[in-house]
């Protein structure tokens, strides 16, 4: 019987490397310093955020500059549950996902009325509304924000070291989950439709793909993931304020730059992009706003002259893929007797 094969030689190597990396990273609390653990956790969350943005923009063609709405929503939801209902922080993270998805439904109903760049600005407006609403909620600190109560912090784990391990493993686990979910989605029938939309939306539509519905589902799923990651981020920070929760710079600009530089529309792109981004940050950290300026210039240069990003350049050159996502049709041998 004919079947579809996803793996290629390079993807088999890629999967093996990723498996090894996962094991090494899972054991990091035992070989890495405290500062390194924090940095790694930060890297994981950005990989997750960028991958989710990539799914939205690179595959579904929905360029959102308002994902910070869900990052902040996740953060504030966590703080609300912990501060007002005494909930366990980790539980709150996992409840945040479905809540984010629920909120995304009416938001999508609104912003989907806009197209293209107007859609983008629309998502930004929604984020602004969330920010302004958060400033009005005085029980959660209003405009100046609030810190996580000590009791909740201790509820996570007894010692500070265990808490940091817990947060690290959570970051790793959530990121791995997000990536695994994306690979599963892209390998499925819906993923095929998404890839078709990525390549040529009009053609996809005329082939009977319900583009609108797929975009809607992707938007809601992305919100699910982004909200959870947002909750984790602010659990790590131990403090939230409307400005930090809904910051365009932190949660959108960096994410966009990471994805553009790494490669839009490929799942490996955000991973490469995040690594490059953090290497640059370590090297140029002291330069403040000049650093952001440089990122903007690099993003523009990449967008114009290497629109498929770094991974795009490498993958096209060598025909690689790190994860088994391609589709090769393996035809059955001729004497199988199967008639078409």
């Amino acid at each position, binding site marked *: 019987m004919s079947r579809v094969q996803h793996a290629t030689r390079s993807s088999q190597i890629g999967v093996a490397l990723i498996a090894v990396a996962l094991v090494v990273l899972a054991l990091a609390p035992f070989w890495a310093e405290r500062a390194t653990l924090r940095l790694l956790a930060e890297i994981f969350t950005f990989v997750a955020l960028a991958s989710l943005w990539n799914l939205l923009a690179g595959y579904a063609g929905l360029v959102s500059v308002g994902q910070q709405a869900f990052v902040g929503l996740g953060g504030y939801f966590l703080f609300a549950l912990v501060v007002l209902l005494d909930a366990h922080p980790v539980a709150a993270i996992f409840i945040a996902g479905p809540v984010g998805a629920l909120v995304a439904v009416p938001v999508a109903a609104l912003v989907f009325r806009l197209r293209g760049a107007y859609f983008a*600005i629309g998502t930004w407006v929604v984020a602004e509304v969330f920010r302004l609403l958060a400033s009005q909620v005085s029980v959660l600190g209003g405009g100046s924000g609030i810190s996580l109560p000590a009791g909740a912090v201790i509820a996570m784990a007894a010692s500070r070291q265990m808490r940091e391990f817990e947060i690290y493993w959570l970051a790793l686990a959530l990121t791995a989950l997000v990536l695994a979910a994306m690979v599963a989605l892209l390998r499925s029938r819906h993923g095929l439709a998404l890839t078709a939309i990525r390549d040529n939306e009009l053609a996809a539509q005329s082939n009977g793909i319900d583009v609108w519905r797929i975009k809607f589902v992707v938007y809601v799923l992305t919100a699910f993931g982004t909200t959870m990651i947002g909750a984790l981020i602010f659990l790590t920070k131990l403090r939230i304020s409307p400005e930090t929760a809904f910051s365009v710079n932190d949660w959108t600009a960096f994410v966009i730059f990471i994805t553009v530089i790494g490669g839009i529309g490929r799942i490996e792109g955000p991973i490469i992009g995040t690594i490059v981004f953090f290497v640059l940050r370590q090297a140029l950290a002291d330069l403040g706003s000049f650093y952001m300026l440089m990122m903007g210039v690099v993003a*523009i240069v990449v967008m114009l002259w290497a629109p498929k990003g770094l991974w795009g350049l490498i993958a096209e050159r060598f025909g690689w893929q790190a994860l088994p996502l391609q589709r090769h049709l393996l035809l059955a041998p001729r004497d199988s007797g199967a008639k078409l």
Partner: protein
Amino acid sequence: MQWGNVIIQGVLIGGLYAMFAAGLSLIFGVMRLVNIAHGDLIVLAAYVALMVRQALGIDPLTSLILVTPIMAAIGYALQRGLLNRTLGDDLLPPLLVTFGLSVIIQNGLLELFTADSRRLQAGAIEIQTFQVAEGLWIGVLPFIQFAVAVIVIAALQSLFYRTPLGRAFRATSDDQAVAQLMGLDTRHVFAMAMALSLAVIAIAGVFLAVRANFDPAIGPARLIFGFEAVIIGGLGNMWGTLAGGIILGVSQAIGAQIDPGWQLLAGHIVFLAILAVRPQGLFPKVSG
């Protein structure tokens, strides 16, 4: 007549919002480009006015004579040198490049001028008012700004529909290839459109600088106000954009009156409500 004055103030600032919007919708109409850096360019204009003032000591309204051509030249160069390369069927490049531009401008201004709040002094005219009815006062400066906004929009309409340049804009927007057959260098046409947009931005920027405190970070909010005015008013109609700006300004003014923290929120909510109920805007252009 508390509410009367509130509404008047809202209407007058609506003129400024309409100017923010005019440049944005001009570019969208001619080349289907939405410039995410639009708001930051308004702020850039404000800083250019600041520099002109510091160098020459002239008052802000006179400085427009210099600021406008400077910004127009920047617009021409920007389109010709950078943004023309992003035009095409793909939606990502113009969006992401103008987003990158927005970050560059904001941080560039931050490096050059720091995050300190600035203001452009216009002298006595800032606090002058005149009375129109019992208990109703209109600020002279806001009134002038509104009047200029109306004049600018009328001028743009006139340019678009009565001049060869406007014809070139409309033809190029309709059909780029055939426009070239008419002898139009579309690279130049697009650059002229951007230059015009930045000229309007220059005026808006100077008015912004006189009216309120500004710093490098306030760009995105201006973009959003302009965008909301366009959507409320309806795409493709400049006078609709003026109406949209007024509605936005009045909503914000009413919101602020109820509670100062509600000013921006009120505007956004009205925008979202119109998006929900009448997404094509209140006065959209009828023909396709």
